[in-house]
């Protein structure tokens, strides 16, 4: 019987070998994880949950078609491998051709230092309680708060019929502080969130952040909404990062591109999408970022992939399947949120590269505009995007002034990329606590970032 132990990947390799003549390709994953999450609401620790998981999955390719099974009982592993092969056969053939990837045998463990720094659960709760009480003690108009913490430590073993055998440890930690002001029939919130793949102590989370969240929330509570209309906008690194992820990152995911001839034309290599100074890339190499990754779920090394350079499309994000279909190289972007899902093309840390303007130059000469800060989420259908800024300031005579609330930016992605007027020379990658959702798999830990950007003609929603 198969059970979780440090060299499990070698056992998985042996299972894969037994199915070599029944499939073109077969991979087996086993994952064991331990998670904790807790949340304060008001003064109370409202939830505190711990979770232990062990499960596995098998993905089989037969005649160019996939079969996939996932399960919790490891004693059924061989049966489930057999079932995956049967499902793939039942599909009756398909066009899937995997791009070649050299087999890898490796072990990627979390550094001992990261583990040594990890506080106990009681310490984590105590720290969040202190920050939460700071928010509650701020006074009017703040009426309530939320403070949230979650961590997940996973061990993942992978074996493939091509000889790959990898054991990886992964850590994902997130936390958020939310201040809420209520009264006069209105509710207004402001939050700060952070995350890490390397340091469970989350040093970014401190008293200063708790106070800032309160001040901004109080400001927003009294702030007016901006008048709807088209604005000259400056977005901060957090919002620029969300734009990189939502608007360009998703369009660069090759599973969308290769199946879609029209999109393939829009995103054809060399196509001019943005201003010449624009550079966007996706990388697994930002240490500590929630998008940091050594190997993806197919065992392909995750490096840096340039997506846009000189304003032109220069690359895209691939799994072995999409790279095979498009005759390009795998990029290490095949990811799955857990053993319950097959790997699909996903981002890691997506970044808009630096330009040449100083911060002052980005703002210089703006008579009337809007400085949009932080993100409350975004959505895109490829062509149109909608993002909510956490807060915004009216810009008058080149200076951010009056605070405004409920700012929603909408626009056409392609037009907007050509309307970028200035790109700051400094990139900031700040981790946040959310995650990415795609094809029912979410939240997946990712990172994003960028410089300040000045963009003309962005529509601000409202009445």
């Amino acid at each position, binding site marked *: 019987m198969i059970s979780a132990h440090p060299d499990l990947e070698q056992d998985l390799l042996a299972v894969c070998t037994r199915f070599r003549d029944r499939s073109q390709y077969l991979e087996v994953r086993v994952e064991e994880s331990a998670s904790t999450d807790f949340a304060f609401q008001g003064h109370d620790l409202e939830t505190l*949950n711990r979770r232990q998981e062990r499960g596995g999955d098998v993905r089989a390719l037969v005649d160019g078609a996939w079969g*996939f099974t996932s399960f919790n009982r490891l004693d059924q592993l061989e049966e489930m491998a057999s079932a995956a092969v049967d499902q793939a056969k*039942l599909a009756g053939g398909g066009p899937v051709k995997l791009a070649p990837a050299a087999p890898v045998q490796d072990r990627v463990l979390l550094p001992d230092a990261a583990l040594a720094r990890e506080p106990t659960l009681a310490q984590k709760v105590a720290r969040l309680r202190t920050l939460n009480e700071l928010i509650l003690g701020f006074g009017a108009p703040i009426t309530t708060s939320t403070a949230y913490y979650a961590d997940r430590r996973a061990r993942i073993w992978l074996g493939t019929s091509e000889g790959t055998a990898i054991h990886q440890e992964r850590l994902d930690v997130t936390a958020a502080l939310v201040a809420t002001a209520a009264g006069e029939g209105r509710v207004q919130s402001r939050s700060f969130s952070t995350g890490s793949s390397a340091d469970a102590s989350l040093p970014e989370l401190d008293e200063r952040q708790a106070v800032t969240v309160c001040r901004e929330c109080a400001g927003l509570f009294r702030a007016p909404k901006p008048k*709807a209309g088209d604005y000259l906008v400056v977005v901060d690194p957090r919002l620029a990062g969300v734009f990189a992820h939502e608007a360009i990152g998703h369009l660069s995911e090759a599973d969308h591109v290769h199946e879609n001839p029209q999109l393939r034309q829009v995103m054809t290599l060399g196509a001019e999408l943005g201003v010449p100074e624009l550079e966007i890339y996706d990388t697994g190499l930002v240490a500590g970022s929630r998008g940091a990754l050594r190997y993806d779920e197919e065992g392909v090394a995750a490096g840096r992939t340039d997506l846009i350079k000189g304003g032109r499309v220069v690359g895209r994000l691939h799994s072995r399947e999409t790279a095979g279909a498009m005759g390009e190289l795998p990029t290490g972007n095949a990811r799955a949120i857990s053993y319950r899902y097959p790997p699909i093309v996903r981002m890691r840390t997506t970044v808009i590269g630096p330009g040449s303007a100083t911060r002052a130059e980005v703002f210089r000469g703006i008579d009337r505009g809007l400085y949009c800060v932080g993100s409350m989420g975004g959505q895109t259908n490829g062509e149109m995007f909608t993002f909510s800024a956490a807060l915004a300031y009216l810009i008058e005579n080149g200076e951010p002034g009056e605070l405004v609330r409920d700012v*929603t930016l909408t626009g056409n992605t392609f037009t907007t990329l050509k309307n970028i007027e200035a790109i700051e020379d400094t990139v900031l990658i700040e981790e946040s606590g959310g995650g990415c959702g795609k094809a029912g798999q979410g939240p997946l830990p990712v990172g994003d970032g960028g410089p300040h950007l000045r963009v003309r003609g962005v529509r601000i*929603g409202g009445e």
Partner: protein
Amino acid sequence: MVSDELLLEQALDRAAAGGARQAEVFFAEGASDSVDFEANRLQGIDSSSSRGLGVRVLVEGRLGFSSTSILDRVEDAVDAALDTARLTEVEKPGFDLPAGEPIEEDISDPAVAGIGVDELMEFGRKAVDRLRPLADGVLAGAGASRWTSHWEIANSAGLRCSCRKAGWQFHAAAQRVEGTSILWCYDGSASMHRDVDVDGAIETTAQKLRQSLKEGVLAAGRRPVVLTPAALSSLLGSLRMGIGARAIYRKTSPLTGRLGERVLSELLTIHDDIRPEAGMAGAPFDDEGIPAARLTVLSAGVLETYLADLRNASRLGIQPGRASRAGYASAPFPGSRNWIVEPGEAPLAELLAQAAGGLVVDSLMGMHGSNLVNGDFSANVGLGFAIGPGGEMLYRVKDAAIAGNVYELLGPRLRALSSERKWGYSGSELMPWALVEGVPIA
């Protein structure tokens, strides 16, 4: 491996031995098959099974929770739950896990449990064959799945209940990219019985696609809007969030303290129904073992009740019965189940005729970034159509956004609900179309 019942009893015994005055074990297992068609072809077949349990304990008045899918180490999960209970707050008095007669029900319809992978593939192929030829560059897709589940609840008050259930879902989708213009349309539903209308979902998707081949814009301003059942459902998300007992207890909901008041238009009467016959989210008992019942949430716009689990019910002094869990790994939380909106009197055609010069909104993008608890939203129209003088669909409206407040739009601005209703994609929402006057369109 020990049997399920024995697992539950062992966990309860260990919790009691570890000092828990009250304890509850929720065990769930399930199996599903699903097929996924994208870009005109079958992408893969997925067969999955899962099993695990969640343990909740009350130690010295404090709640702890833990879950595991490692069923040969259930004692670890019990110990972890006892451990977490050392750190939480003391609950309000009155938190008592329910006793009650044992319930053992199998509500799975054999006609659904018997749907095979080959049949699911057939539905998907049908969608692709029908949608693909409708226009140049159409990428047709579909998803179909069938699942069975079994769950059991046992608690220290002596409650023992279990249920078996089966369900399935189908949706058809079409995507079309022309230049930098991207269109998405889809339709489908889910059910515990064979009544998901596969052909109907394919035809509705085909119709949306055909109506979208012509595109145009609509000048900004206030216009009448007809919300489809799917769009109405996303606006009613504000109400759904607002009546959850946790938001009421925390006073983060604008509906706090407003029972008996008119909060939305008198045209709106809404029931939350957990009974198995009410829809896909039905079951003989809620996820804490309280027997199923229908609750009227809104009666002619007047707020009648909040929805509570045991914990928030004891905090607020109201009835429990609306506990949900997102699987074995989730502690119970309060929320709605099948959401049934009473129909109006006028046929849809009449609503459309009254909305001449306005917009049909089928999907909204970016709602989750809005201040939804408050009701404030600003969202892009994902799929919307301009309405002609006779109520006909003229063209797909591009680059439009609508904004406003849900309590205003579905309050004083709501003019009519249609007599026709439609099941939502999840199979747990039955909604009419809605005519709203003077919606700000940007």
